């Protein structure tokens, strides 16, 4: 009997994912495809801790979102797109009476793999600071949300920051800017934007690929030494960032002339690089640190009460932990928008799309939820699924990230035509008739 009881308890813990769902009330089901083991676990472990801590805070301290509790459940994928697709298929019908309002893909390759499937199933794919850049155009991609900071915006913000360091956009003319990139769809995603920026501002655009995993980069940095660029935009991922910083030091390229992108700017990249990372800067739509109001609230209600999912409390406020917090907050605020419109009950995919397409977090709201400075103001519309397009810049001082700037916006006037052209080509290839803003509104009402 005791064994049976233990087994039942264990099964409940495993299958329920630790979420405090109550049988009597219907909660909003949120599946989380995660990677706590495998090559990218060092990022994932903190990311999921951030998401879970925030969802737990909302459930236990705020009583849910407009009274609706969140029932979150993890699925291990090891960052493998095929496993994420499998998870999607298992959860797309919802659970325990709750439909699926949206699906976090937690990875660009998984977003690409699910793009058409989710559109057919009418389930929004949420992939902040990732996804397919053209899917910013909600007229063609109604169910894809590359929120916050597309890859084109990353390139443009990086160039804008370099311009601010050299004295203005007009001073970019004649400079050599090399992009060292992970030779993958992710790494290549910013190239059209950098091409356009180079033509507009007259800098020399040098692209140098690093093949996965990037554990030996001497040939690439020898090439850089020959070319002598003024600045380097580092678009690497995982071990290739650490090796890039160390090899740059060996070849005498100064770290303070290297700007990393979103996914090359966490403690996992800088701590192993040691002295080679001191002075290195990175784009930060998810700034690191604990100097934000939400961290005070979480510390008091979650960490100090021993409820955090963090394995090591020293990592509270690490960049990847804050990625989880921001992404969870975006989901919570979108659900709140939806509940206010449709009523406080679990939403389905079409309602979830409406909710995300009407998500607005202004500076006043950012202060209320404790994310002022940590999250940029955001306004999603049916035709703009990015809604932000800005980042702060943070620099590594040898022990922590230090914020250098306020939010720097991407050049949307230059990027939007590129995105529209890419989306139009996709629509033509797939036979999609783009929505108008009015039809998008009418579809969900």
């Amino acid at each position: 009997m005791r064994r049976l009881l233990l087994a039942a308890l264990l099964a409940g813990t495993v299958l329920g994912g630790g979420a405090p769902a109550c049988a009597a009330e219907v909660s909003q089901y949120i599946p989380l495809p995660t990677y706590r083991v495998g090559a990218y676990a060092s990022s994932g472990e903190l990311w999921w801790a951030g998401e879970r801590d925030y969802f737990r805070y909302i459930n236990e301290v705020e009583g849910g979102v407009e009274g609706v509790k969140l029932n979150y459940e993890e699925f291990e994928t090891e960052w493998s797109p095929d496993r994420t697709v499998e998870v999607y298929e298992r959860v797309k019908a919802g659970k325990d009476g709750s439909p699926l309002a949206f699906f976090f893909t937690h990875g660009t390759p998984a977003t690409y793999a699910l793009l058409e499937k989710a559109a057919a199933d009418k389930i929004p794919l949420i992939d902040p600071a990732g996804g397919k850049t053209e899917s910013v155009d909600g007229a063609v991609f109604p169910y894809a949300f590359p929120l916050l900071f597309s890859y084109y915006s990353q390139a443009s913000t990086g160039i804008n920051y370099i311009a601010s360091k050299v004295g203005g956009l007009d001073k970019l003319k004649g400079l050599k800017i090399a992009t060292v990139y992970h030779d993958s769809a992710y790494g290549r995603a910013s190239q059209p934007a950098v091409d356009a920026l180079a033509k507009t501002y007259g800098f020399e655009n040098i692209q140098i690929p690093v093949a996965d995993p990037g554990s030996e980069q001497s040939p690439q940095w020898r090439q850089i030494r020959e070319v002598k660029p003024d600045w380097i935009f580092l678009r690497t991922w995982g071990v290739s960032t650490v090796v890039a910083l160390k090899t740059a030091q060996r070849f005498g390229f100064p770290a303070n002339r290297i700007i990393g992108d979103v996914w090359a700017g966490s403690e996992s990249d800088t701590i192993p690089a040691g002295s080679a990372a001191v002075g290195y800067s990175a784009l930060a739509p998810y700034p690191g640190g604990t100097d934000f109001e939400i961290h005070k609230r979480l510390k008091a209600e979650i960490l100090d009460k021993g409820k955090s999912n963090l394995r090591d409390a020293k990592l509270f406020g690490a960049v990847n932990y804050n990625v989880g917090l921001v992404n969870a907050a975006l989901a919570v605020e979108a659900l709140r928008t939806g509940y206010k419109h449709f009523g406080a009950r679990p939403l389905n995919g079409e309602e979830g799309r409406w909710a995300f397409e009407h998500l607005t977090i202004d500076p006043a709201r950012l202060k209320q939820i404790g994310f002022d400075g940590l999250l940029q103001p955001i306004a999603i519309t049916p035709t703009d699924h990015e809604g932000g397009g800005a980042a702060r810049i943070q620099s590594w001082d040898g022990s922590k990230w230090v914020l250098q700037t306020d939010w720097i916006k991407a050049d949307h006037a230059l990027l939007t035509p590129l995105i529209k052209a890419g989306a139009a080509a996709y629509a033509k290839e797939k036979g999609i008739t783009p929505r108008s803003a009015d039809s998008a509104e009418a579809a969900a009402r």
Partner: protein
Amino acid sequence: MSLFLETLIGGVLAGTLYALVAIGFVLIYKASGVFNYAQGSILLFGALAFVSLKDAGVPVAGALAITVGLLIVTAIAIERLLLRPLTNRSPLTLFMATLGLSYVAEGVAQGFMGSQVRALDLGIEDLPMFLGDIMISQFDLIAAGVAALLVIALSLLFNRTRIGIQLRGVANDTLAALSLGIDINRIWQIVWAVAGLVGLVSGLLWGARQGVQFSLSLVVLKALPVLIIGGFTSIAGAIVGGVVVGAGESLAETYIGPFLGGGITPWFAYALALVFLFIRPAGLLGERQIERV
């Protein structure tokens, strides 16, 4: 000319790091005919154990001693729990067993010691040295020295000690060795322990360069073309293979890469290995096995 020489020397030195990983495979393959898929996971396990102990405040010498002890215990456990029950099974069965072992080793390592990237400072600065116009990595130079010392130590072990002679006997003819009273189980334990120690050395060197993290287990991907080129049964072959791969991919990336869009190092090493498979299937220094059919 200086660019060519610098690229060549840099590649040769990087190749010795590949060779270090490959030597772990050679030791086990030579003694038991098993291609040990778990070598990368054992390399990760050793490096992670060392850095975890060091981070916990254990002095370097103590951390090293405990890690070596752990690897020896692991080798004994592998022989007892995995190899002994599978004695006389096909090489494919043993290979699949090591495949399973790799997942267990990775899971245990990350489960107990965490998945965060750890910095590892061996006190070797990764700074440049100059010979005229030619830049050489100080770190790579020291790593090459360590590899050379390791090869000398292994040669002494195999050629000048009783255990080494027994080991060679088992490698040449297992049945004959058994009939002479050699304890094959003990030999396997020793070989797996030595391969674990070689893995630890390469894990520490690679870990110092890229941080101690899961990706360390993937450096074995660099060892496969090295083994094909050098031969699966020769330590000297692993060194030669490592040098060929290191120099080849470095020169190719510099001189051919720009015409092919760059980033060609991973597939170039395998393409090179394929060429060697056509010309010399047993590798440069591997033993040619001729079977009567």
